[in-house]
């Protein structure tokens, strides 16, 4: 039990620290945990991508990669703790959960019910081979040397696409570090982790959708999250729906892209628009780094072609929306002036 709690704590703390460092470097706004956790999550995937590609190039064993990753993670987290004390204090001390309200309890109940769904139902694995890759990595202590479908050594080697997809290797490393049961970790813990990250991303969206200050805005955001949670809970009625992906395929890279990366890109586009209107100098455009990070994160998570297509469509719609709003705004101003 203790190793599960420790693993859970690491999966929450490490992205938070990475995100704090990232936000500090690019002078990005930090008001809540969501502002640091989500970019930190992307950085974690990119970090594992970099170390995994290096390991595969050098033909390192999985255990050596795990050792390298653990050391680097410790160093980076230490650096983040030292450099981001002010930011972390702001998130956890100055802006904590100020008081527990009935609405927040309702939100928590919905979240727990969704966790129950994840645990009760079998994962959907017909089109997925993540567990086979993880089992192969753990059994052979190698990365990308054995065919996960048969257990035989590769003759021609893995495809380039599968070399770049690091989610199985990331999961393998965590399982090996904490000596966890692979099935419980992959099919239960990771979907809950991704579900939690999904909530944080929508909290970021809510931050952009409800302008204002104080209790009223906070209240609206909580209500928005309650309705979002309710829709998620009852929305698992077809395989095309987002709740289906989150509950039954939460560990897959495509789910992470669709449930976290795309909404994050939307929230950052809205933040960018606001910054351009209100901020000066570097702070006008620093959100672009978050957008770039989100784009790069697609590579380790899913087939790059499809991933970039999702991003391209999202950004295209966002840009068209911005243009229409601007043109509409200018036309409205001209009409006002004439009248």
């Amino acid at each position, binding site marked *: 039990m203790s190793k599960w709690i420790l693993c859970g704590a690491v999966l929450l703390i490490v992205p938070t620290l990475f995100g704090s460092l990232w936000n500090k470097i690019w002078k990005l706004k930090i008001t809540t945990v969501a502002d640091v956790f989500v970019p930190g999550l992307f950085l974690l995937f990119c970090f594992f991508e970099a170390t995994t590609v290096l390991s595969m190039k050098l033909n390192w064993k999985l255990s050596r990669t795990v050792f390298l990753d653990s050391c680097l993670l410790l160093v980076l987290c230490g650096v983040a703790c030292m450099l981001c004390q002010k930011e972390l204090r702001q998130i956890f001390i100055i802006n904590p959960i100020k008081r527990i309200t009935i609405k927040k309890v309702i939100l928590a109940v919905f979240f727990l019910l969704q966790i129950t769904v994840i645990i*009760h*139902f*079998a*994962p959907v694995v*017909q089109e*997925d*081979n993540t*567990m*086979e890759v993880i*089992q*192969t*990595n753990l059994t*052979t202590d190698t990365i990308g040397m054995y065919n*996960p*479908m*048969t*257990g035989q050594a*590769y003759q*021609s*080697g*893995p495809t380039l696409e599968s070399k770049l997809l690091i989610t199985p290797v990331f999961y393998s490393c965590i399982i090996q570090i904490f000596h966890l049961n692979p*099935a*419980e970790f992959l*099919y*239960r813990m990771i979907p809950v982790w991704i579900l939690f990250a999904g909530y944080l991303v*929508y909290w970021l*969206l809510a931050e952009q*959708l409800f*302008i*204002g200050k104080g209790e009223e805005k906070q209240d*609206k955001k909580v*209500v*928005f*999250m*309650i*309705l*979002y949670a309710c*829709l998620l*809970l009852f*929305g*698992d*009625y*077809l*395989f*095309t*729906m*987002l*709740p*289906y992906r989150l509950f039954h395929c939460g560990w897959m890279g495509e789910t992470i892209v669709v449930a976290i990366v*795309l909404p994050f890109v939307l929230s950052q586009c*809205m933040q960018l628009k606001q910054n351009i209107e209100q901020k000066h100098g570097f702070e006008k455009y620093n959100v672009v780094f978050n957008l770039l990070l989100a784009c790069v994160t697609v590579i380790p998570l899913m087939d790059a*072609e*499809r991933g970039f*297509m999702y991003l391209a*469509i999202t950004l295209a*719609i966002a840009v068209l*929306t911005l243009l*229409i*709003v601007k043109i*509409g705004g200018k036309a409205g101003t001209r009409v006002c002036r004439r009248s």
Partner: protein
Amino acid sequence: MQEVVELIRHVQATLMVYGKYQVLFYLALFYLLFKQNKKSDNQKEQIGVLIYMLVGLILLWNPLFVAAIIHVFPQFASYWQLLWVLPMIGVIAYAGTLVLAETKEYTKKKSWWIYLSIICVIFSLAGTIMPYESETVKAADNAYGIPTRQMEVLERLDEEKGTITLLAPDAVMGVARRYNGATKTLYGRTLWSTSVPKDAADAYEEADYKLYALMQEPTGHEEEITKMAAERGCNYLVISNGTIEQEEAEVPRDPNAIVDLSVDGNLWCLHGFQLLDETECYYILRR
């Protein structure tokens, strides 16, 4: 182009059959379009959300655009994947929040909770109380998501020492390496399923395809299967006793149709294979 139009229509129809979130989504858009609160601080954001969704719908309903995407990216032949770009659930929640904010201005605090409850009930009626149960989504027998009948075989094999090279029916072959990475198989799911990602540039040999074809109808091919399995280095062979096939065929259970390997001279004990154990639906042979 006709196919693309049909595809779009089919997906939209399917989305409406199983649940009504699409209806809630369109209601949310109508609300944002016609009921904007001009005094609200969030009017700009409401307009932004509305325009974003309308632009998205115009693009994703446009057969020309969809045809272009499918042509350039054949992986997107599943049109519904494109719809994930639109945060439908977020928009419904957003409109619901604005509705509740408006009611808060005109009602007492207790009434507001009633309105929230009504909205949650509407969402539950538009969706489903119980998650989507189908062939792919079932209650989990175990953390691996492996059905109990196949799990029994794998747990029995787990007790064996040494390397296991396995040949078994698809239901067992497809999950063996999910359970235990040390178990080798003569071929994998990628041989019979095109939807599993192909990790390897390695291609299967002709003998793999032949063996797979024989394993689909093993009765009468015992000699060939055991011979090929022994030649390929297989040391564990699993065969069905007919229970699952009878259930799938929905015929009354016929004891005579069940393979019984416990009798002497059974046809599978060839080329060194001997009966090791049996489970509810399978026999396990070892060489």
